[in-house]
């Protein structure tokens, strides 16, 4: 069962982790770490959730744990430094542009983990609220309010730098 899950979900997990790290080498290491973490607790996987959502949860936590380790070693880039210079003196520019993609992505990484995870599951993985709720183990109402706050925060940060 675990072997099948590895074969089936590695592509998706790998893709998700890459979108959170933007680095092939780190993605590969973290994907392996995530599955090893899963394997270690597989014996006690009770099947309350689908193995798919269970693996996502583990993968997300593996990435966040890695980030925390990194943030202890490296100074986190200030959000002020992630805005391309050309946008600074262009307040009339529409919120969404090609340049904004880079800003949005980098700003997404700076959000608190709980905000990042709902945004990633919803808009990268296209999970509906129920699936997000199952993956993160939180009520659907919390998913909705957390998504609302996460998007407001993300939008506010991106907009604030324009």
């Amino acid at each position, binding site marked *: 069962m*675990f*072997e099948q899950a*590895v*074969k089936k979900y*590695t*592509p998706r997990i*790998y*893709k998700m982790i*890459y*979108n959170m790290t*933007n680095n*092939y080498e780190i993605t*590969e*290491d973290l*994907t*392996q*770490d*995530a*599955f*090893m*973490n*899963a*394997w*270690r*607790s597989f*014996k*006690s*996987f*009770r099947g309350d*959730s689908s193995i798919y959502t269970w693996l996502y*949860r*583990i993968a*997300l*936590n*593996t990435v*966040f*744990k*890695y980030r*925390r*380790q990194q943030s202890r070693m490296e100074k986190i880039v200030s959000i002020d430094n992630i805005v391309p210079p050309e946008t600074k003196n262009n307040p009339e520019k*529409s*919120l*969404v542009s090609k340049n*904004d*993609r880079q800003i*949005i*992505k980098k700003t*997404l990484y700076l959000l608190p983990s709980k905000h990042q995870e709902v*945004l990633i599951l*919803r*808009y*990268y993985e296209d999970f*509906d*609220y129920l699936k997000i709720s199952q993956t993160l*183990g939180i009520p659907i109402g919390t998913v*909705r*309010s957390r998504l*609302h706050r996460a*998007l407001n925060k993300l*939008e506010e940060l991106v907009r604030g730098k324009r």
Partner: protein
Amino acid sequence: MNNHKRFEELLQGYLDNALNSKEKEMFKNHLKSCKRCEKKLKERKNFLETLRSTKVEIQYPDYLIDNILKNTTKKQSSEIISSKTIRWRYLAVGAAAILIVFSTILFNIEDSRHIFITKDTKGIRKEKILTEETKTPKSEEEILEQEESAVIAEKKRSTEEPLRLTEEPKSTTPETKADFTGVEKKEIDILSENLAIDKTQNEDIQKEAQLPSIAAKASAPSITSKSRSKEPATLGFDYETEKTSADIAPFTEDIPTGGALDSNFEETRFVFPEEGSVVGKDFEIVIILKNPAENIEISLDGEKITNYTKTKDSNIIFIGSDSLPSLEEGLHFLSVSTTKEKNLTFYKEG
């Protein structure tokens, strides 16, 4: 204003198609009369499209699945180590050490059982073997020697009393005494500086072996025994960690993570799961028995645990985090009783 805030929340649900029909209708009606929400809806829609477009589609490397399987299902769980932490030289040394130990066991031990204990600490793989020897005396001389050893061991134990993980009953029944006459404790450190462990060295190690010192290292207070049996509560320690370099929590060699041995205890694991483990809000306990057992009684810090699962043949017991109380960092006391009661002490990492 408050009303408007509510519609802002509904807006997100509307875009995510997550509103029920009543909410949807309500929001649509509001939208007709609210320019602000209409503008916000348009902006947010564009924003989400951009957010979605930042997702990168990439292909995983072909070898990745094989690598994962090699490190998981094709590997014994107790040997799981992160690919990043593999140190071939340690594996080679470990293999050599295992051979040495096996030959030691074959030549010097008549009736023994042994358990491999692995620890992966700061990338250094250290392996220890604890053996319980029960030699049958063959001559009066040997019996005398054993009795002397027992007296010396008893003296040693009495001086170490404050460091003991579990209290040994002061009085034992004759039957119990007979069971444990001549029991020797050995701790063989495979990765000792000189790997050529011979019989002489074993004797030295044997003299130096102070099993309960683990508790002292962990600055453990003395624990009151809750053993109901008359036999010595702790024969040895089997502690194991499956932690890898990926673990965040620092793991020091001084912290025992697992419990005691009994003739029916294959191994006991206290699993402090990764954050990634859904099951592991705190931790869980896995007890593996050599033989199926009935009437298992488990208690943690004196509180009986009734909610646990076991395999069909009753030799693997899982106590999930949901059945365990929230534990603070420090030493805790686990009592597992089958035919004999055993007390285990472990350390909850912070």
